[in-house]
């Protein structure tokens, strides 16, 4: 029989209080977004999800192309940042002498401190030209492409992935590694059999945090993605759209259209609806990530 729960210390009381506050803030935010976007849900129904066209003046609000762009850019960013960041973390934790670890970690964290607008400028000044030259043979229209945005975002979230992965890996007890080495596994075997499996929850957390940031990032993407509406790809899995301009939910929100929308109830609610969609998207992917994480925890007990 459980007795009714009563907190027994200040630290506990205080923790509950702030946790409740956080929850409240998020709920309030979500409710606000939902409330402000009611009009567009009524107007479009599910069309907002599946509609491939967004023309605000004819009141057509379909976000499919933007959702596509958001996902592609985020996936590209992860494809770049995940191997690079986790690889670097593995190197610092498992291969390099301990004193190097903090040096490299601190350096890479510096990358996180470069403001997004500066990343955007770097994107305009350097990256977009590289892409433009690299894919010249594909007759691309300009260097503003989904790929450009993906790469730029990848670099932006790299420090997040790297430093969190580093934390997760260094949290694995040394005795476990030494036990594996004692059995004759080499350093790399040990990584795959001991460190990575045990750090997996932390690694997934790192990727989820990075993914969240990637999807919510506005300014840098805004400057290099081209911001072309209605770029629904002819073939969903072809690579061609990667080297064409596109739009993400957040680059749309960061643009000037929000100024036009302000004061026009339906249009405004459509823009707010986009933020809500972005939120939903992050929820979905997060749930997926957490599910994978739970799943991986269970399987680690089997052989």
């Amino acid at each position, binding site marked *: 029989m459980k007795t009714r729960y009563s907190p*027994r*210390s200040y*630290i*506990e009381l*205080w923790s*509950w209080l*702030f*946790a409740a*506050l*956080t*929850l409240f803030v998020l709920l309030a935010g979500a409710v606000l*977004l939902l409330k402000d976007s009611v009009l567009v849900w009524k107007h479009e129904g599910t069309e907002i999800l599946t509609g491939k066209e967004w023309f605000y003046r004819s009141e057509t609000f379909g976000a499919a192309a933007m959702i596509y762009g958001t996902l592609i850019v985020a996936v590209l960013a992860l494809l770049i940042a995940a191997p690079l*960041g986790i690889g*670097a973390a593995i*190197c*610092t934790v498992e*291969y*390099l002498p*301990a004193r190097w670890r*903090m040096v*490299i970690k*601190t350096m*890479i*964290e*510096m*990358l*996180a*401190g*470069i*403001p*997004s*607008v500066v990343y955007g400028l*770097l994107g305009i000044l350097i990256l977009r030209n590289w892409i433009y030259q690299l894919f010249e043979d594909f007759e691309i229209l300009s260097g503003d492409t989904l790929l450009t945005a993906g790469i730029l975002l990848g670099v932006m979230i*790299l420090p*997040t992935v790297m*430093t*969190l992965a580093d*934390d997760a890996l260094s*949290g694995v*007890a040394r*005795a476990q590694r030494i036990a594996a080495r004692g059995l004759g596994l*080499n350093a*790399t075997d040990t990584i795959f059999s001991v460190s990575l499996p045990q750090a997996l*929850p*932390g690694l997934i957390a790192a990727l989820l*945090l990075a993914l969240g*940031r990637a999807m*919510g*990032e*506005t*300014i840098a993407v805004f400057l290099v993605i081209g911001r072309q509406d209605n770029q629904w790809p002819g073939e969903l899995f072809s690579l061609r759209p990667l080297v064409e301009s596109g739009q993400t*939910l957040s680059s749309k*929100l*960061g643009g000037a259209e929000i100024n036009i929308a302000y004061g026009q109830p339906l249009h405004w609610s459509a823009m*707010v609806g986009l*933020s809500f969609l972005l939120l939903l998207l*992050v*929820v979905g992917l*997060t749930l997926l990530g*957490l599910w994978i994480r739970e799943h991986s925890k269970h399987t680690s007990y089997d052989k």
Partner: protein
Amino acid sequence: MTNREKSHTKNPSKSDSKSRRKRRLIHELMRLFTGFCVLLSCCLLLGIVSFIVIRGLGALSVDFLTGVMAEVGASGGILYQLLGTLLLLLTAAVVVIPLALGCALVQSVFLTREAHRRNITLVLYLLNGVPSIVFGIVGMIVFVQWFGWGKSWLAGGILLGLMILPTVCVTLIERIQAVPKKYIEAARGLGLSRAQTIRSVILPQSIGGLFTGLLLGLARAAGETAPIMFTATIFSGATLPSGVKESPVLSLPYHIFILAQDSYDPATKAKLWGSALVLIFLVFLLSLLALPARLRIHEEANHL
């Protein structure tokens, strides 16, 4: 090599050396790959930073740091932008630390049901996924309109704090969960209560996560424009705030954001890169300040 009578494989030495060679190869490849990752990451950093340094170093001087902006950024310094950003970051840190500690402890220590824990984790990841621009919009509705604060540094600090909360909190939670159970058992065995165990075992061993998270978060907050441009910062004219209501500050990212898009005067450009350089330097300084503490924690936590 002596013959092994009880070995399991039919032809031990041969198949052994084959698998050994394979593993050796994987080992070398892996070392190469991860080394390359470190190298590439560092090169990226060096490349980007040196790009900014080359363009911005010319602007850097004592006057630049201590002077007030003149000719809309084409001359003078960025004193109040710098102070404003510092103030925002400080506020954000003050806001986020108790919140993050609270959430993390509730999630990983006080909640006993796995389902409840997962809910908190979910909430945190959700918050992390909220685009910064949405923070700005919601913040504007709440602080500027409901509270009637107008633009206020406090609103900006709170929003930035909330924005980086998930990063700080999740990092902390991960570290708390990595604290070996045996330590907790040993402390409880000595008669320490849950709260005392938190203070004496859990926090000391996981506080590094708070540092990492805070640094990452503040680094991000330092460069963010979207959440503060509706709520806390203006382009020019503000100095140090004297109250809460109607007391905006200037800030570096917003300064860069506006001038990068529309400044006509070429002299502004060098100053702009100078501002970016200062911003990076600020973040670097933050990391350096935390370094001794982190190194110490690293040593302590290098448990067996």
